[in-house]
């Protein structure tokens, strides 16, 4: 075999470099930022991902499949308590129930009905009506038998504080498996973002101000989830008192004392559940100590902003 001359080596190198540049050019043409909106969970779900054109449809199909399956399994009045998905999320919810001292509780369904949130026929029930419902609450009253959830008569589950976040986690994981390395999925405020944003920086996530238009501030985050619970999302007013859709399972009354809670951490499902728990709990710091990877931005009833738990890159306005 003859040894290539220096000139032919140089030629070979140029050809190789041209080939690399050509490939980069092809990739640049085919990859780009894609945004689309889907309707699930009675809200809009925004997706922005960096991908090849041919990946758009598969990602839409996969997110729709995952969200559709979760919507079907966890919609009020349509719950198969032996479904593997339901049993799996029940076990996750029970762990949060235990870690939050029962503040996060998916058995608040009877309260949601009593106060009229399920029918949108809002009402303030009498104290004895609330007391009558309290024995139907408590995840410790639920049994798991042969992979089936067994409720006591009258108990009703409300997955609103955890299912959406879980759906986002599953969808983000599926997109990662497809090969999407940058993007976010945001299902009505429960979101997960990963990689760098279109400016090659962390994602700028605005936190909705609980009492006015615009943002409370902006988070800079990546490879992390976020979720917000607030007394402004679903509520009604009677005689100047605001009654929100998140309940204190001990008193049976809507949560009071905080306008909103945003939680940031590795799993959107836990951000979702913890934001609900921290809106209700009188001791949010104690709960966050059990979740050292999670941080919270709490707006109290006076509108003051308090940060707790893991430190966050948050610019307040």
């Amino acid at each position, binding site marked *: 075999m003859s040894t290539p001359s220096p000139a032919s080596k140089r030629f070979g190198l140029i050809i190789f470099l041209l080939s690399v540049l050509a490939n980069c050019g092809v990739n640049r043409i085919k990859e780009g930022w894609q945004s689309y*909106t889907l*309707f699930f969970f*009675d*809200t*809009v779900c*925004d997706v*922005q991902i960096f991908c090849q054109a041919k990946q758009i449809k598969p990602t839409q199909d996969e997110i729709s499949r995952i969200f559709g399956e979760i919507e079907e399994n966890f919609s009020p009045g349509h719950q198969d308590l032996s479904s593997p998905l339901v049993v799996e999320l029940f076990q996750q919810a029970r762990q949060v129930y235990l870690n939050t001292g029962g503040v996060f509780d998916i058995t608040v369904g009877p309260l949601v009905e009593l106060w009229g949130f399920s029918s*949108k026929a809002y009402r303030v029930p009498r104290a004895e009506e609330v007391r009558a419902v309290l024995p139907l609450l408590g995840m410790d009253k639920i049994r798991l038998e042969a992979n089936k959830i067994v409720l006591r008569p009258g108990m009703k589950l409300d997955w609103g504080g955890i299912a959406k976040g879980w759906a986002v986690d599953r969808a983000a994981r599926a997109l990662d498996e497809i090969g999407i390395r940058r993007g*976010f999925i*945001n299902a009505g*405020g*429960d*979101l997960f*973002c990963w990689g760098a*944003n*279109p400016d090659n920086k962390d*994602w*700028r*996530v*605005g*936190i*909705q*101000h*609980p009492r006015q*238009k*615009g*943002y*409370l501030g*902006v*988070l800079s985050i990546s490879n992390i989830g*976020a*979720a*917000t619970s*607030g007394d402004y*999302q679903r509520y009604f007013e009677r005689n100047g008192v605001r009654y929100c859709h998140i309940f204190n399972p001990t008193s049976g009354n809507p949560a009071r004392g905080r306008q*909103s809670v*945003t939680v940031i951490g590795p799993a959107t499902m836990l951000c979702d559940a913890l934001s609900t728990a921290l809106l209700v709990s009188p001791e949010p710091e104690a709960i966050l100590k059990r979740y050292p990877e999670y941080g919270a931005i709490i707006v109290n009833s006076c509108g003051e902003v308090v940060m707790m738990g893991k430190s966050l890159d948050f610019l307040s306005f």
Partner: protein
Amino acid sequence: MLTLGRNQAERFISAGGEVVVGIEGGRAVVLASTCRHKICQSSPPASLAGERIICAPNRFLLEIEGPKFVDTVTG
């Protein structure tokens, strides 16, 4: 697409029904909707880039276009 610079009203047929959007004084509102609870009609007006009015039953999303200050929003 509607411009905020001109007072007007326009009917949109979406996947779930019909929504009438009104623009007045640089702000967009939903004037009428075929949805059941009319939450979209009681939504505050939208006027700044990124602000939205959503009618989930009608699968309708109104969003003000323009340079955005954030990538996405939680809340």
